[in-house]
C-alpha cells in the first residue's frame, strides 16, 4: 500500500485553518442548521402534514387507489429490473476496469459516466428518436410487434439508463484502491477465476456493492425526467409513482398527491437509514481489517 507523501503531509499542516473566532464559528453553525432546516426538514414535514391534512381516510384512499397501486407496481418493477441489471453490469465492469488492462479501458470508464453527465430529458428523447414512430428502429420493431417507448419496456430502459453508473462508480475506486495483490496470490496458489472472485474480490467489496445498490435503488424509485418523456402518461399503464404524483397535483388533489409522495418519502428515509448502517458496518470492518 502506498504511504502518505511526506511533502503532502507538511502541506496539510500548513493549511490547517486559523481559529476563526467564536462569532464566525456560531454564524457558520447557525447557517448550516438553518440551511438543513429549510432545505431538508421543512419539506419533509410539509409532505407529511399535507398528506394527513384531510385525515386518515383520505390518506388511505389515496394510497389504495387502483391507479396509485398500479403506478407503485410499475415503479417497483422498473426499480428491481434496473437494480439487478446495473448490479451485474457494475460488478463485471468494475472487475474488468480495476483488475485488468485492456485497450479502450479509459473509453469504457467514460462511457459509464454518460448517464451522470447527460440530462434525463435528453436520455428520454434519445429513446423516442430511436424506438418511436418516427425513429429508425420503429419499422423493425413493428414487424415483430414490439413496443418500446410509451410502454413498460421504455420505462424500464429509461430507468436503467439513468441509474446505470451507480454500482460501477461505487466499486471502481474501491477496487482500484485495493489493488491486485491478493488476487495474484490466489492465482499463484492455483485458484480458478470464479473462486478468486468469490473468495477474494467479493468479500472486499461487499459493503461498497451494497452501498451502490442502495443508491441505485433510491435513484430508480424517484426517477422522473427520462421516464416522463417516454411514458405517454397512460393511466394505469405507463404511469410510475412520481408521474402519478404529478398528475394528482395537477388535478388539484393536493392531499392525495402528498399522500402518495409520503410513500416515496418513507422509502427514501428507510433507504437512507440502510445506507448509514451499511456505511457504518463497512467502515468498521475496514478498520478491523487494517488493524
Amino acid at each position, binding site marked *: 500500500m502506498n504511504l502518505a507523501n511526506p511533502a503532502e503531509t507538511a502541506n496539510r499542516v500548513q493549511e490547517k485553518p486559523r481559529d476563526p473566532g467564536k462569532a464566525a464559528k456560531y454564524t457558520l453553525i447557525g447557517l448550516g442548521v438553518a440551511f438543513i432546516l429549510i432545505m431538508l426538514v421543512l419539506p419533509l414535514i410539509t409532505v407529511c402534514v399535507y398528506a394527513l391534512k384531510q385525515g386518515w381516510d383520505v390518506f388511505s384512499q389515496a394510497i389504495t387507489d387502483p391507479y396509485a397501486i398500479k403506478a407503485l407496481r410499475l415503479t417497483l418493477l422498473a426499480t428491481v429490473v434496473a437494480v439487478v441489471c446495473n448490479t451485474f453490469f457494475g460488478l463485471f465492469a468494475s472487475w474488468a476496469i480495476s483488475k485488468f*488492462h485492456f485497450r479502450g479501458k479509459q473509453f469504457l470508464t467514460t462511457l459509464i459516466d454518460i448517464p451522470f453527465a447527460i440530462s434525463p430529458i435528453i436520455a428520454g428523447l434519445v429513446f*423516442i428518436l430511436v424506438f418511436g414512430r418516427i425513429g429508425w428502429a420503429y419499422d423493425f420493431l413493428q414487424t415483430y410487434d*414490439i413496443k418500446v417507448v410509451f410502454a413498460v419496456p421504455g420505462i*424500464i430502459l429509461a430507468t436503467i439508463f439513468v441509474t446505470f453508473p451507480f454500482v460501477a462508480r461505487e466499486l471502481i475506486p474501491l477496487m482500484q484502491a485495493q489493488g491486485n495483490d491478493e488476487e495474484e496470490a490466489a*492465482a*499463484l496458489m492455483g485458484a480458478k477465476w470464479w473462486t478468486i472472485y468469490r473468495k477474494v474480490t467479493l468479500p472486499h467489496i461487499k459493503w461498497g456493492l451494497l452501498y451502490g445498490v442502495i443508491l441505485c435503488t433510491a435513484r430508480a424509485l424517484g426517477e422522473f425526467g427520462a421516464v416522463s418523456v417516454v411514458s405517454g*402518461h397512460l393511466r394505469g399503464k405507463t404511469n410510475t409513482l412520481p408521474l402519478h404524483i404529478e398528475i394528482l397535483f395537477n388535478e388539484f388533489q*393536493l392531499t392525495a398527491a402528498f399522500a402518495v409522495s409520503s410513500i416515496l418519502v418513507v422509502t427514501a428515509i428507510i433507504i437512507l437509514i440502510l445506507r448509514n448502517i451499511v456505511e457504518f458496518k463497512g467502515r468498521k470492518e475496514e478498520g478491523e481489517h487494517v488493524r
Partner: protein
Amino acid sequence: MMGFTWAQMNAWRKKTVLGLTLLVAAAPLAACGSNAANNGNTAEAQGASGETSAPAAVEITNVSYDPTRELYDAYNKLFQAHWKEKSGQDVGIIQSHGGSGKQARSVLEGNEADVVTLALEQDVAELEKGGLIEPGWVGEFDKQSSPYTSTIVFLVRKGNPKGIKDWDDIVKNGVEIITPNPKTSGGARWNFLAAWAYAQAHDGADEAKSTEFIKSLYNNVTVLDTGARGATTTFVENNQGDVLLAWENEAFLSIKEHPDDYEIVTPSISILAQPSVAVVDEIAKKRGTEKVSTEYLQYLYSDEAQKLAGENYYRPSNPDILAQFSDTFNLDLKLVTIDDDFGGWEAATEKFFADGAIFDQIYRK
C-alpha cells in the same frame, strides 16, 4: 515471476470478462425485447379475436389535453355503461392528459391512442399530416368534430382588486397576467386570438395597433407555463399574478375548488374555442377498435353526454342543452370563431404562431 503469471492469466481471462460485461449490458435489452414481444402478442391476440367473435373486453386509449380530466372521468363511466348495453362488451378506457401540442407530439412519436380529444383542430391536423389520421376527419362527426366548446374568460382574485372588467384592463401597467405559452398550449392560442379579436374590434381592424395591444398584454405576463393546467396551478395554488386567462371550464373548476378565493370575469368579446376529437385511424385499424372508438366519440353528442359536458362547465354543442345551462354560462358574450374571423387555423397559425410570426415578434422584444 509473479507478475508474469498474473499477466498470463490476464491475457486469457480478460476476454471472458469483457465478453461477460457486454453480455450483461445487453441482457436488459434482450429481456425488454422479449417482454415487449409478449405484450404485443397478447394485444394482437385480443385485437384478432375482436374481429371474429365479440370478446368480453376491449380497451381503448384516449389521449386528451389538460383540462378534460374531470370530464372524461365522468364520461368514461357513462360510455362504459352505454357500450355494455349496446354490445355486451366491457370497455376499458385508458386516459392520458397533458398540454395539447405535447400530447399530439407523443401520439405522433408512437404513443398509441385509439382516439384523440385535443384542444385544437391544428394538433389533430398534425396527426393527419403524420399519416395517422385519414383526411376528412373534421367532417366525420357533427359540428366540425367539436362535441363541446368553451371560451376564454378571466379568473381574478376575490373582490377583483385590480378592477378588471375587459381586455383593456389587463394591459394596464402593474397587472400581472398568467397565461400558458401559445407555442405549446392550445388554450394559450385561444387566449391570444380572443385578445386579438378584441383589439381588432376596438382599433378599427388596424393590425399595427392590435399588435401593439397584444405586445403590451404579453409584457404583463409574469409566468408563461407550457400547458393550461400548469398555468391554473400557478395562479390558484402558487398564488402568482392578478388575472389568469383561462378556459371557461377551467375557471369554473377553480371556483368550485376555492369558492371564496376567486371570481370569473367575462370580457365583452371572446372566442368560441372548438376542441377537436378524432379516431386515430392507423392505430384503431391495427388494434381492431374502430367501431368502439367511433362510438366513443359519437356518443359525446348524446343528450346524456352533452349534459355531462355542461355539468363539467363545457358549453354543449347541442343548442337546446346549452340553453339549459344559461344560469352557468354567460350566453350573451360575443364570440368570434376561428373560421369566420381568422380564416381557419391554418391561416391563423401562419399569421400568429409560426416561427417568426406575430407572437415571436412581440415576445422577442
